């Protein structure tokens, strides 16, 4: 039995952080670099233990800050390695400049971001504001709902990032506390099955790497139209991410029997009159409330946003087209628009879906619990708006 399979190929009760560590380990990264931060620390401790136990065979760089973590993985990626890092909140914003670098270099780095409120009003608490703040760095961003999805998405992220047609860094977001420390039964696949799932990457052309002695320069100045061309290429690659996320998820389903819907997952939306859009751990709670409302006869559905960057415009438009009212639940805020950021983006596709009442709900800041009661209130409000009642566009809960 391989060293990896002593701890994998089984179902175990593990936390979201551990699930991410297992996911990363199973993908055999060459270089891992990370700096501890609550609520991510358990993840990198788990990886360090895997490394110490000979289960994770990699260069594990215990850096002196997140900015360095990002630069280490970017450098190692450009040299040709598979790389992984993880951070949260303050750490994420501390690597802001380096994140632009990684994305611009088209380095297929995979990074976990355990969502936590950013600095300013100090709070060692869950919240998605951190991921919103790096929206335009050019990274792909995905959001997980359960511990199992964290593990599965980590594996899918390597498949996505390193795809020759993509070559982009990927962030996997999951809620601090509510998912990072949540222990659930998680199926940990056999490493050989993960190898097989990722083997398609080996059949693709090799991306350029910085090989010593070959007169190659990485990161040359983009001059004039050269700069413009690379920007367009970056954007085009982002466009290609959307359909390929669906394909990768389907391939994953075939290999491991678990499917997540690709860019978005729709839950009971088909015949729904009203829809709630949300992401992360709140989705799970929302599912139970939707089920209860359905029992009461209310035609309500749910859209789980899995892909945040690029924004799944077409899939989301399809899911929301023809609905009578739409609510969006955000765990963060959007300055300038005075609403939730996912709401703002959803509103931007209203020309695709028709002008119906759209409502923004802000809940779950700083570890505040997004309770069933809150979601029930949201759905009732959306329902009333769909019936022609006047409504308030933005609601803060609690």
């Amino acid at each position, binding site marked *: 039995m391989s060293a990896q399979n002593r701890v994998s190929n089984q179902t175990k*009760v593990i936390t979201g952080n551990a699930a991410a560590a297992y996911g990363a380990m199973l993908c055999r990264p060459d270089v891992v670099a990370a700096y501890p931060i609550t609520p991510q620390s358990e993840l990198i401790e788990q990886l360090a233990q895997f490394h110490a136990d000979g289960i994770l065979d990699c260069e594990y760089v215990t850096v002196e800050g997140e900015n360095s973590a990002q630069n280490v993985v970017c450098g190692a990626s450009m040299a040709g390695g598979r790389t992984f890092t993880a951070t949260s909140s303050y750490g994420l914003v501390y690597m802001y400049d380096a994140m632009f670098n990684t994305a611009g270099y088209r380095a297929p780095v995979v990074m976990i971001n355990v969502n936590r409120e950013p600095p300013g009003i100090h709070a060692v608490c869950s919240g998605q504001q951190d991921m919103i703040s790096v929206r335009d760095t050019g990274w792909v961003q995905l959001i997980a709902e359960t511990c199992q999805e964290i593990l599965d998405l980590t594996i899918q992220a390597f498949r996505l990032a390193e795809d020759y047609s993509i070559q982009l860094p990927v962030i996997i977001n999951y809620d601090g506390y509510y998912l990072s420390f949540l222990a659930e039964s998680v199926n940990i696949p056999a490493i050989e099955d993960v190898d097989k799932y990722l083997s398609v990457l080996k059949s693709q052309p090799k991306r350029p790497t910085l090989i010593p002695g070959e007169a190659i320069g990485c990161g040359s100045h983009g001059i004039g139209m050269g700069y413009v061309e690379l920007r367009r290429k970056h954007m085009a690659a982002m466009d290609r991410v959307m359909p390929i996320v669906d394909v990768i998820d389907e391939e994953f389903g075939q290999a491991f029997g678990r499917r997540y819907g690709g860019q978005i997952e729709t839950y009971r939306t088909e015949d729904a009159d009203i829809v709630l859009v949300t992401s992360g751990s709140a989705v799970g709670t929302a599912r139970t409330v939707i089920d209860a409302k359905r029992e009461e006869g209310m035609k309500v559905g749910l859209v789980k946003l899995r892909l945040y960057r690029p924004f799944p415009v077409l899939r989301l438009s399809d899911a929301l087209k023809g609905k009578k009212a739409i609510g969006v639940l955000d765990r963060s805020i959007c300055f300038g628009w005075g609403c939730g950021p996912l709401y703002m983006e959803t509103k931007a596709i209203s020309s695709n879906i028709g002008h119906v009442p759209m409502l923004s709900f802000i809940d779950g800041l700083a570890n505040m619990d*997004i309770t069933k009661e809150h979601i029930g209130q949201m759905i009732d409000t959306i329902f009333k708006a769909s019936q022609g009642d006047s409504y308030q566009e933005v609601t803060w809960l609690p």
Partner: protein
Amino acid sequence: MSGKEIRFHGRGGQGAVMAAKMLASVMAREGKHVASFPMYGFERRGMPVIAFTRFNDEIIREKTQIYAPDCLMVIDPTLLSLETLFTGLKPGGILILNSPRQLETQPSQNLEKAGIINATHVALCEIGRDIPNTCLIGAMAKTTGWFSLDSVIKGMEDYLTGSMLKKNIRNAERGYDEVEVQRWQ
């Protein structure tokens, strides 16, 4: 029996979070869907800590804190003075308490029975350190009847090995054997 929700109260360093996680592993051995998570800001020794565990035959979707627990586990007897300790306890609720003495009065109208054991004393005997959590899980198995002692021992194997596992098995067994159950109507 369908789903149950348990809230754990302890102080940083006493293993409340570990107890909650371990219970999830135990119930996974019993074939249940499980979910467990703690709620704290900083990890500090002595600071009151809350953790939650859910188990159910059905898949557990919700990711909320637990507001109406079926059972409370109180790892530190001094936490009994906490005003909010019994908040939300369901009628017919159960308390698992680490304490050297029985309760003099029924602390909450909704409390039906309390499994009480001096788990600190047991842990000091068996492990040599004040780690009462495995003893209390053993006591919980007996008091609630929701799961077997055998599953407790198997669940602990996810977290402990070698002599620490052996000592904790003994700790849990004594919890199971020695817990005293107080009942109210």
